[in-house]
């Protein structure tokens, strides 16, 4: 008996309406905490942290490059897991979250690539450097674009979701393999130059803003994911009665 009790909780969690109403209340708080974290991290990293001994001030780009790469990679796993949940338990909300997570991940990967390239100029003298981390980021961007582009081969929403979920899972299995083989390829060709993720060895004054920025980016990812998911819910559930009711109240109070 308790099995289906547990299931109803699980499926109630999966109902778009529940998600829409709950996030209505969470959004203001989340965005407040997010902006506080991002602003303090930014000001701290840009103005107060001491420059790196070797790289000078250009190292401050780490405060946006590393958080973006970390969250972009985590975002791929979040997207793939949402797809898997949708595929296994057929929860529509999971598919909506997967579909919303793709563009955010791709944008964050793009930020990581651009900031990495700009950081490369003062450190290595060239905008593009086939460093292991940057190359893996580039491949991750292609993975994201693949998942987003696959949607257009299917006319029905359900099939497009399933196909993207499958590709997400295949990608999830491959991401660690890609990262490890790129690292191995890196050591094969050049000795390890300046490591990008030299986070722990850094001076605490430099390291703390990085932690704050990473937390800020995770919150930013959550807020953006919720916003995209809410738009997606309205797009897909436009026939549902609760949506119509919501719209009439909305226009009433305007």
């Amino acid at each position, binding site marked *: 008996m308790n099995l289906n009790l547990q299931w109803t909780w699980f499926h109630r969690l999966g109902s778009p309406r529940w998600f829409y109403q709950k996030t209505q209340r969470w959004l203001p708080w989340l965005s407040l905490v997010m902006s506080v974290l991002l602003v303090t991290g930014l000001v701290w990293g840009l103005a107060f942290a001491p420059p790196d001994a070797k790289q000078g001030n250009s190292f401050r780009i780490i405060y946006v490059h590393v958080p973006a790469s970390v969250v972009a990679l985590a975002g791929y796993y979040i997207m793939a897991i949402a797809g898997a949940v949708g595929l296994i338990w057929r929860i529509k909300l999971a598919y909506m979250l997967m579909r919303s997570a793709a563009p955010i991940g791709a944008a964050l990967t793009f930020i990581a690539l651009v900031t990495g390239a700009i950081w490369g100029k003062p450190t290595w003298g060239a905008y593009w450097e086939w460093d292991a981390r940057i190359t893996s980021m580039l491949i991750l961007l292609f993975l994201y674009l693949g998942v987003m582009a696959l949607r257009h081969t299917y*006319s*029905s*929403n*359900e099939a497009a979701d399933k196909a993207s979920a499958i590709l997400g899972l295949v990608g999830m299995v491959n991401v660690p393999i890609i990262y490890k083989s790129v690292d191995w390829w890196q050591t094969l060709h050049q000795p390890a130059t300046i490591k990008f993720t030299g986070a722990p060895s850094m001076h605490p004054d430099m390291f703390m803003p990085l932690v704050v920025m990473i937390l800020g980016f995770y919150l930013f990812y959550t807020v953006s994911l919720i916003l995209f998911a809410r738009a997606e819910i309205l797009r*897909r559930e436009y*026939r549902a009665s609760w949506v119509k009711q919501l719209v009439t109240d909305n226009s009433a109070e305007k």
Partner: protein
Amino acid sequence: MAATNILKVENLAFERNDAVLFEPVSFHLSSGEALHIEGANGAGKTTFFQLMIDMLQPSAGRVYFRGQAFSECRYDYLCDILFIGHQSGVKAALSVEENLRWMSPDNTSSEQIASALQAVGLDHYAAIPCYRLSAGQHRRVALARLMTTDATLWYLDEPFAALDKQGIDFIEGCMQQHLSRGGAIVFSSHQDLVKIVARSYKLNPFREVI
């Protein structure tokens, strides 16, 4: 119950991009019975057949095969059905005989293959690769499977489409034989049949309740 109940369907519905094609479908089928699915073009007959052969997953409703829920007896169900749809499933590069052998169960003897080809009038073409044959002949190769199959439940989507008089007689003969042996048939077609007495089930389009 004299006739064993082969198939039972309870308010089967399918949704694609929130568009529902037909009202929920419910019927039951016993051995020796044929069910004629009627419905205007585009009423979702082909989608209905895709649902019945588990190519598409229904958004609601349940299917029972020999009293067992579909999810428990999927293997036996798929072992025991034959589906002939719009596409012939014939490989152009293979010869007629190879194609029929590929589409027939493992243990069909070559005499059975030869007599099936003879019945559809393709016995002279046995060794000829199919890319030299017409679409109508491709269809006849697919229909020759009616003679070699051992499945008890047949799903025929518009079997009589674009067939001459002789072709229609052949199929009705096969269907009659199959019914007399205790098989069941679900088919859709625009011609009404002479020899077969079949219950009809109308797929009425879904009226959006506003």
